[in-house]
């Protein structure tokens, strides 16, 4: 599939996409820090304490990111539905206008308008 650079730029510069990008960078950053943290030399008691905390952090981070993505996807879905509804209403209004025009044409004996339908 060929990429459309204009569309790609338009999507990438949307504020919500920008926020999503920052969130993804934060997740990457957290993973890097956790990895460094676990590689630090420490005594056994401290290690268990840190590991437990790190597991909590990872669970929280994953949960938060999933929730964030779910919310974003839901918002996109709602937006698409709204846009589709708007388009459907416009098409319906257009069709109704054509039908009314044809009816009016017939009433006035201008049957040639029917050909435009």
């Amino acid at each position, binding site marked *: 599939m060929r990429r459309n650079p204009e569309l790609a730029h338009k999507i990438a510069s949307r504020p919500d996409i920008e926020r999503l990008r*920052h969130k993804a960078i*934060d997740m990457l*950053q957290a993973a*890097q*820090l956790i990895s460094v*943290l676990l590689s630090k030399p420490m005594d056994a008691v401290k290690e268990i304490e840190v590991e437990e905390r790190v597991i909590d952090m990872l669970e929280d981070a994953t949960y938060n990111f999933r929730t964030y993505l779910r919310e974003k996807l839901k918002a996109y879905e709602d937006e698409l539905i709204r846009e589709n509804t708007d388009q459907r209403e416009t098409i319906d209004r257009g069709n109704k206008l054509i039908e009314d025009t044809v009816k009016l044409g017939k009433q006035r004996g201008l049957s040639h308008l029917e050909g435009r339908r």
Partner: protein
Amino acid sequence: MTRTPMILIAEDEQSIRDCVREVLEMEGYEVQTAVDGMDAWQRLNAQGRKPDLLITDIMMPNMDGYELIERIRNHVDLKYMSVICFTATRNIRSRLADSQCIHVTKPFDLDELLGAIESCCVNNNKPNKELL
């Protein structure tokens, strides 16, 4: 006797905030944390010892890093405070060009952050040493 430097971390992402705090405490620093710019601003204005260094994210709810840094630079007691800011884009760097901050780009290497902190703490100690 030199006192332990105190660092305030303003970061809305809890996992980063907790990890950085953990690492800095291991390195021997005294650490406070804030969940966003507003929380950091309130802590900076609270009674008691002021942090020697602020590490702040830019994109935060309630008050972002831009506003927090601007308020600090306009505050009579805080304007010379060392600030390290986490940046993710060039736009942010150019907007903070005159803010006298050290920029650390996310995702950053821990050694890079520790190096920046060390240079800030060394600079902070200079005036105190001259007074002795």
